[in-house]
């Protein structure tokens, strides 16, 4: 190397922030953070202790147990047995996060200072970075449990949730699912105005000692493997206002699984049709009060949407990590891709988007009660960002991006669903407006 080139390099090195800050005063140095840390470590450091522990545990679990299964679960979903990973996750405490210690496994500090969803969201990102399908397989269980808690109905919690959690903690996990969508009513049941005109068919008829339910639900995540389902039905002769949540158990007479969908992604978790043909449900399986289903459902979405956002973020981070690895290992024109400034700008753009999505997700579930506008905003932003980042990851990899063995394309397929389920992003945008209507319409002041 020529001496003048060395001089230039030495000058560049001296100008790097790490070296330049040596010239600051003592207190100035204290105010500069030049530590070489990953973004993941930086962000983890922001979390309360409990959530921090779960984030580390979740990443370790995802790498150790989810990563080896990811390709098989995606390519051969019908042959993939989900029970072992569910059991493993349960043993590690990931399936009982909706209640704080000692009833569940969430740390009380993060649970009460943030929200019941916060630690679940932190875990969801880590799982989803390895496999969208397995992440959904594990996370849909929390969605199924949520109506039991959010009903606020103590007998329901004592009768159903605590025993389920106790069995899970003892190594006998049960899988829960959540069923609201019907063949003729998808987005309708996730939005107020649509709900008023929804064409629902699943109906509960009151009989001695309970109810008889008839109807169908569709696209139910984990529907085929669930041991129990929190399922919503209108009461006979009434509309959506009468929606009531029922706990349906596998083996109930008249309850069966219909068609299982073939999906673009998130394949490890089935999306199934549930058929209810004169299913007799005892009174004790009514979740909360009669006609409280609509309110319960809407609040479940408030708590679940940040988690869906976190899953979307996980897909995007996973795709980003694969693109990054590709850029490190691929040489073009004598240089690694990572050394090209235009590639660096693309990568930086992806980092910015990932960071902004994480900030909004963590914000949306950072108070004890999750609320509609922030949850919907987090879901919309994170899922849109996710699909954008996944697409960009594939673009950076060029033709290699669409090869299945490179991993980015499956996360791209997974990410697309997050713009659709838990209310399409169009419905979620309307949810933001609905919740902030007083402000938007000028009814409330500053």
């Amino acid at each position: 190397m020529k001496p003048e080139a060395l001089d230039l390099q030495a000058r560049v090195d001296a100008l790097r922030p790490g070296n330049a800050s040596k010239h600051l005063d003592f207190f100035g140095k204290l105010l500069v953070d030049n530590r070489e840390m990953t973004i993941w470590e930086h962000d983890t450091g922001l979390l309360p202790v409990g959530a921090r522990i779960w984030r580390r545990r979740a990443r370790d679990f995802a790498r150790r147990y989810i990563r080896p299964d990811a390709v098989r679960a995606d390519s051969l979903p019908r042959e993939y047995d989900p029970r072992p990973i569910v059991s493993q996750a349960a043993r590690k405490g990931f399936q009982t996060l909706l209640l704080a210690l000692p009833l569940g496994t969430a740390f009380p500090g993060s649970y009460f200072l943030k929200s019941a969803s916060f630690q679940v969201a932190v875990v969801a990102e880590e799982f989803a970075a390895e496999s969208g399908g397995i992440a959904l397989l594990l996370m849909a269980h929390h969605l199924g449990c949520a109506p039991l808690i959010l009903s606020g109905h103590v007998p329901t919690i004592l009768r159903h949730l605590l025993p389920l959690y106790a069995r899970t903690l003892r190594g006998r996990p049960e899988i829960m699912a959540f069923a609201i969508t019907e063949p003729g009513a998808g987005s309708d049941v996730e939005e107020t105005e649509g709900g008023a005109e929804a064409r629902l068919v699943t109906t509960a008829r009151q009989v001695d000692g309970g109810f008889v339910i008839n109807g169908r639900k569709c696209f139910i995540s984990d529907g085929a493997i669930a041991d129990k389902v929190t399922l919503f039905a209108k009461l006979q002769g009434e509309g959506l206002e009468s929606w009531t949540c029922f706990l349906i158990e596998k083996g109930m007479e008249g309850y069966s699984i219909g068609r299982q969908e073939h999906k673009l992604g998130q394949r490890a978790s089935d999306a199934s049709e549930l058929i209810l043909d004169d299913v007799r449900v005892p009174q004790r399986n009514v979740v909360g009060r009669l006609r409280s289903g609509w309110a319960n459902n809407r609040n479940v979405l408030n708590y679940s949407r940040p988690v869906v956002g976190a899953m979307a973020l996980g897909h995007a981070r996973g795709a980003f990590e694969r693109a990054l690895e590709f850029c490190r290992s691929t040489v073009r024109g004598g240089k690694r891709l990572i050394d090209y400034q235009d590639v660096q700008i693309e990568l930086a753009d992806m980092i910015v988007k990932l960071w902004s999505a994480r900030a909004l997700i963590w914000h949306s579930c950072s108070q004890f009660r999750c609320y509609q506008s922030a949850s919907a905003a987090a879901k919309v932003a994170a899922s849109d960002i996710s699909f954008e980042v996944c697409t960009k990851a594939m673009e950076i990899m060029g033709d290699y991006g669409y090869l299945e063995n490179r991993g980015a394309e499956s996360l791209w397929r997974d990410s697309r669903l997050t713009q659709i389920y838990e209310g399409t992003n169009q419905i979620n945008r309307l949810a933001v407006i609905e919740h902030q209507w007083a402000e938007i319409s000028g009814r409330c002041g500053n």
Partner: protein
Amino acid sequence: MDLSLYAREGEQEFVELTRSFVRKSVQPMFGGDAPDGNLDMMPSILDTAFEVGLAASPCTGMPGFEYGIWGTSADNPKGVRLSAMLLSAVAEACAGIAMNLHVQGLASRVITSSEGGLPEPPARVAVALQEGHALPDYRALLGHGGEPDEGIGTRVLPTETGWVITGSKSFVYGMEGTDAFLVFCRIAGNRGGENIGCLLVPAGATGLEVRDVGGRTGIRACGLSNLVLNDVIVASEHRLSSREAFSLMGRAMCLHWLGISAMAAGNASGALKAAREYAATRYQGGAMIGEHPAVRKLLALSEARVEAALALLLQTAGFACGNTDFLRRCAIAKLMTTDWAFSAVTDALQVFGGYGYMEDYGMEKRLRDAIVLKTAAGSRNYLETFISDAGREDIR
């Protein structure tokens, strides 16, 4: 949006012929459980495409020799425009089938536009332009700097009776039953303008391994392979005209990018039509979903992007010639049309809600095809650098 509205006098007949082929031969492959259609029908579909003259052939006397997609009529802007339209029309139904016709036409066009052609051209042929992550060096393609053989590691050595080729090619799209591959390679020892050669390698040549790339996201109706050439010997007459291999490569890149643009626009147009039909029949929230403002917004944006993609595609085709300005325009067309088309498809899919994500409605296939067209044959970064450098040359 209707492609026929863009057809000029003389083009309408070809568009209708293509639509008829799509109705009778392509559409029957869909409707079953397979997400990419019944691929067992591919051989008969391609045979029909050759019979009706939609698939180009490098052999004189074959129906598609002149007016097939990228047939010899594509030696002028009118012919290029027509081929692009026909590709779009096929891609409205299936971009994978369109890719088969495109790569067959691309290879045929390379052969027929070379001086002297080949004595006995093969019926089904594919062209290998890419190696690993690398496309041919963009600076050289633009004619300002760089080495023409940059990005080409495949080497060819002359022998007394022919040539010996060693190296590899990647991401070679081709019909099932491809008879031969056109391989661009570096001629050992030669420098300057003649250091690139284009040789025809028979599919059964000793030392040639054709390896399927394995699972991939989309465009599955068309084969995709990597070629490994281990001292493959080809006869001397299998080299295309020695002086123009580099310009043939540039022309091939032009048509490849333009073809991908055409397929992307067609695929998006098909997605939009399907979304419009669905929106007119699906009830939600007290009305047909097509009446909901959110859905109308999706459809409007999708339509605007399809129109923009088609307009840019056809405008670019109108500039067809052999110079670097056309190459630059084709790079711009590839960059933008695939981007617009991809957005149009994802918006159209969103109209279907949860059903759009399921294989039954065919929208997920369109999305998979759209992302492959967006990422294949020149990453976004490559194209941006290429366009930027070409623009800089204009200023000089």
